[in-house]
C-alpha cells in the first residue's frame, strides 16, 4: 500500500517535472568556438533547398543571402544598392532599364559574370525557362524582352511602368546552364557554399575573389538546432556564437558571455478590427479602443520593454514612409475612451471576442494585456484561441471574426505591400476597411511618377488609417539576437536576412 503512495507521489512529481520541461538533450558541451576567423551560427531549421530559385523557407533565404546576389541587393536602410550591376539608367517612359554590369565579377567557380548569365537567371526565376520546381517571381513577368547589346550590358523592356520593379531584381544571378545548384550551389556572394549535412549543419567559406573585398570571417558553420530547449544550452556551452530570433525569455536567461542585439521583426502588430461588424463599424468605437489600449504598457508587460510602438500600418525600418507623429496620435486616455463609447451608444461598454492563433504566444500575451486594459473602459473582451489553419481560413480568408491580434508583414520592400491591402476591393483586405478617400489616395500613388510625391501620398494613406482608427496599432515586435562578446558588425535589415559579411571578431 505504501508503494502505491510512493508511486502516486512519484507519478505526480514526474508529471509536473515533465510539464516544467526538465528535458535537456541537445549537444554535448564543446570547446570554446571563438577563433579569430571562425564562426558558429545556430539556425532553427534545416535548409529546404540550396537552389536560390527553388527555396521557399524564410530561414533558408536568411542564410543563403550570403551566397547569392542579384543585379541589386538590399541595404540595411531599406534602399537598393548596386550589386552585380554597377549602374543603371531608366528610360523616359520607364519601360526600359539598362544595366551596366560590374566588370570582372567572378562566380564561386571562377567564371566571370556576363550578360548571358543575367538573362539566363532572370528567365529561370520568372519561370519562363521551363526549369522544374521554380518558385516563380510573378513581378518578373512584367519583362517583355531582354537584350544584350554586349557582354556587359543588359536591357530589360517592361510591359508597364512599375515603381517597385527594381526591388525584384534582387533575384539571384547564377551561372548559365550550370545544373548542380541543388547540391553544389554557385553564386557571387561574399561566402561560398562548402557542404551540408542534412539536419545537422551547413558550412560556408569566405570567397576571396568577392567583388566588394573578402569578408573577415574565413569559415561559418551553421548548426541546425531545432529543439527550442537546446538553444540556450548550445549558446552557453560554446557550440554556437550567434543565434537569431530568440524569445525575450530565452534572451533574459543568457549569461554574461553574450550581448543581446535588438532588431525589429518588421511587421505591424495590431488589434485588427473587423470594420464591417457591429460595433466596430462605428469610427467612435474604434477610436475609443485606440484610446483605451496603452501600447507602451503592452510592450513593458508582455515584452519586457522590447518593441517599437507604432501608430499606423508602417514600421520604423521603412524610414522613408514611417511617420512617427502617428505613433502617439491616440495617447492612453480612459476618460476620452469612455466619452467616445457613450457617444457611440455604449455607455456601459460591450462584449467582444479577440481571435488569436494559439501557436503564437506573443500574440496571446498581447491579447491578455489588452483584455485587462479594455476592462477599464467597460469593454468585456474574451480571447478565442484558434489553430493557425483555422485562423487562416476563417479569420483571414473568411473574414469571420470581430477582432484579432496578429502581425502583418510586407512581402516585398515596398510601402504598397503594406498599404494596398486596405483598399476596399483588395482581396486580402481582411478587416473590410472601406474608405473612399483611401482608395483614391492609392490610385493617386500608383499614378505618381515622382518618388518623393509618391512617398507623400503613401504617408497620407497611413494618416488616413490612423485618423479613422482602422485598427488598434501596437508595435513592431523586437527581434532579439544573441551575440557572443567579441563578435562585432551585426547589421539588421528590413527583410529577413542574416548578413555575415560585416561580422568579425574583435581582439
Amino acid at each position, binding site marked *: 500500500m505504501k508503494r502505491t503512495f510512493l508511486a502516486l*507521489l512519484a507519478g*505526480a512529481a514526474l508529471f509536473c517535472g515533465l510539464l*516544467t520541461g526538465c528535458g535537456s538533450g541537445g549537444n554535448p558541451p564543446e570547446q570554446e568556438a571563438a577563433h579569430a576567423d571562425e564562426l558558429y551560427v545556430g539556425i532553427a531549421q534545416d535548409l529546404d533547398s540550396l537552389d536560390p530559385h527553388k527555396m521557399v523557407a524564410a530561414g533558408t533565404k536568411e542564410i543563403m543571402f550570403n551566397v547569392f546576389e542579384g543585379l541589386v541587393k538590399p541595404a540595411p536602410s531599406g534602399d537598393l544598392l548596386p550589386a552585380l550591376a554597377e549602374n543603371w539608367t531608366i528610360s523616359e517612359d520607364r519601360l526600359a532599364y539598362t544595366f551596366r554590369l560590374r566588370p570582372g565579377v567572378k562566380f564561386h567557380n571562377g567564371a566571370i559574370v556576363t550578360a548571358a548569365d543575367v538573362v539566363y537567371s532572370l528567365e529561370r526565376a520568372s519561370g519562363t525557362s521551363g526549369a522544374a520546381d521554380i518558385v516563380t517571381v510573378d513581378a518578373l513577368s512584367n519583362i517583355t524582352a531582354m537584350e544584350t547589346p554586349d557582354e556587359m550590358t543588359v536591357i530589360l523592356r517592361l510591359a508597364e511602368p512599375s515603381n517597385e520593379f527594381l526591388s525584384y531584381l534582387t533575384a539571384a544571378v547564377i551561372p548559365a546552364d550550370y545544373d548542380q545548384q541543388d547540391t553544389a550551389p554557385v553564386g557571387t556572394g561574399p561566402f561560398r557554399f562548402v557542404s551540408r549535412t542534412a539536419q545537422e549543419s551547413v558550412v560556408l567559406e569566405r570567397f576571396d575573389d568577392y567583388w566588394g573585398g573578402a569578408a573577415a570571417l574565413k569559415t561559418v558553420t551553421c548548426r541546425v538546432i531545432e529543439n527550442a530547449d537546446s538553444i540556450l544550452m548550445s549558446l552557453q556551452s560554446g557550440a554556437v556564437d550567434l543565434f537569431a530570433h530568440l524569445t525575450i*525569455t530565452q534572451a*533574459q*536567461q543568457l549569461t554574461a558571455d553574450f550581448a543581446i542585439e535588438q532588431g525589429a521583426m518588421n511587421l505591424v502588430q495590431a488589434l485588427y478590427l473587423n470594420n464591417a461588424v457591429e460595433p466596430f463599424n462605428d469610427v467612435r468605437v474604434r477610436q475609443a479602443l485606440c484610446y483605451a489600449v496603452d501600447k507602451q504598457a503592452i510592450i513593458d508587460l508582455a515584452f519586457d520593454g522590447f518593441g517599437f510602438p507604432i501608430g499606423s500600418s508602417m514600421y520604423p525600418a521603412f524610414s522613408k514612409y514611417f511617420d512617427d507623429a502617428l505613433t502617439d496620435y491616440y495617447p492612453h486616455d480612459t476618460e476620452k475612451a469612455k466619452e467616445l463609447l457613450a457617444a457611440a451608444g455604449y455607455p456601459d461598454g460591450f462584449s467582444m471576442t479577440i481571435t488569436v492563433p494559439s501557436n503564437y504566444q506573443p500574440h496571446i500575451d498581447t491579447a491578455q494585456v489588452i*483584455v485587462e486594459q479594455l476592462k477599464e473602459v467597460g469593454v468585456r473582451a474574451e480571447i478565442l484561441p484558434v*489553430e493557425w489553419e483555422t485562423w487562416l481560413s476563417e479569420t483571414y480568408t473568411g473574414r469571420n471574426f470581430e477582432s484579432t491580434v496578429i502581425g502583418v508583414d510586407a512581402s516585398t520592400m515596398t510601402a504598397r505591400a503594406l498599404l494596398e491591402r486596405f483598399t476596399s476591393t483588395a482581396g486580402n483586405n481582411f478587416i473590410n476597411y472601406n474608405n473612399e478617400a483611401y482608395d483614391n489616395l492609392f490610385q493617386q500613388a500608383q499614378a505618381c511618377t515622382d518618388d518623393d510625391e509618391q512617398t507623400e501620398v503613401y504617408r497620407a494613406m497611413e494618416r488616413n488609417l490612423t485618423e479613422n482608427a482602422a485598427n488598434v496599432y501596437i508595435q513592431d515586435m523586437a527581434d532579439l539576437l544573441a551575440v557572443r562578446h567579441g563578435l562585432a558588425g551585426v547589421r539588421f535589415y528590413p527583410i529577413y536576412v542574416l548578413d555575415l559579411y560585416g561580422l568579425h571578431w574583435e581582439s
Partner: protein
Amino acid sequence: MKRNYYLCAGLVLTGFLAAVTLAGFFWTPYDSAAMSADKFLPPCAAHIFGTDNFGRDIFSRVIEGAGTSFVIALSTIVIGASGGIVLGAVTGYFGGLADEILIRIGDALTAFPSILLALVVISLLGPGKPVNLVLSLGLVFIPSFARVTRAAFAEAREINYVKSVRLMGASHARIMLVHILPNTTPVLLSALTIGFNNAVLAEASMSYLGIGVTPPDASLGYMLSEAQSVFGRAPWYALTTGGVMILFLFGVGLIGEGLRAREGETL
C-alpha cells in the same frame, strides 16, 4: 475498529485545500487577472507565491486555477462515471451480443492514449470553450468506469442473492439499482478517486497543450505551461503551482487509499 490514518490525513489535506479553493470563488488576495509592473517578484510578504510574467499574484491565480481545475475534473468525473456506470451496469447485467460489441468498442477506445482521444474529440467540438473540454474529457473517461462496473455486475449476476430476488419477481431495474449497485460501491469509490486524479491531470495536460482553458483564465495546467517558459527566471512559479497540484492529488489519493483500507476491514 483501527483508526484509519490514510482517510483522516486525506480528508484533512483535501478539506483544507478545498476550503481555500472554495473561498477563492468569492475572494482572493488580489484580482487574479490584474497586471502590474512588479513582474517576477520572488515570494515575499505581499505576494506569498511571488508574481508571474505579467506581474500577477501567483497565489491568487493558484487559488483560482485550482478552482477551475477542480470544477472541470469534477464535471468530467460526473459525466464519465454516470455514463460509464449506466453502460457497464446494463452490459454486465444482461450480457449477450450488445455487451460484446459495446465492451469491444470501449476496448478499442482505451487502446488510444486518452489525451490523444480527448484531443480528437475537442477538435471536433471546437476548442476554447470549457463545456467542450469537459465533454471531451468526460467521454474519454466513460470506458474505464464502464469496465469496472461491468465486471462487478457480471459477477453479481451469478450470485445467489440476485438469483433469489429474480425468482421473487423483482424487475431488472430494481435488481440493478437496489440490489447490485450498493454492493459495487467499494469498487466504484476507488475508481472515482483514481478517476478524479486522472481528470485533474488530464485537464492540466489539455490546458498545458493550449486547448484547455482560455487565457487570461487560470488553471493549474495552463499556469504550469506558462511557468515552464520562465523557469530559469522565476522557478517559484512552477514550483508553487506544481506543489499545490501534487498536494491536491496526494490528498485525494490518500482518501482513496483510506476508503479501500476501510472496505478491506469490513468485508
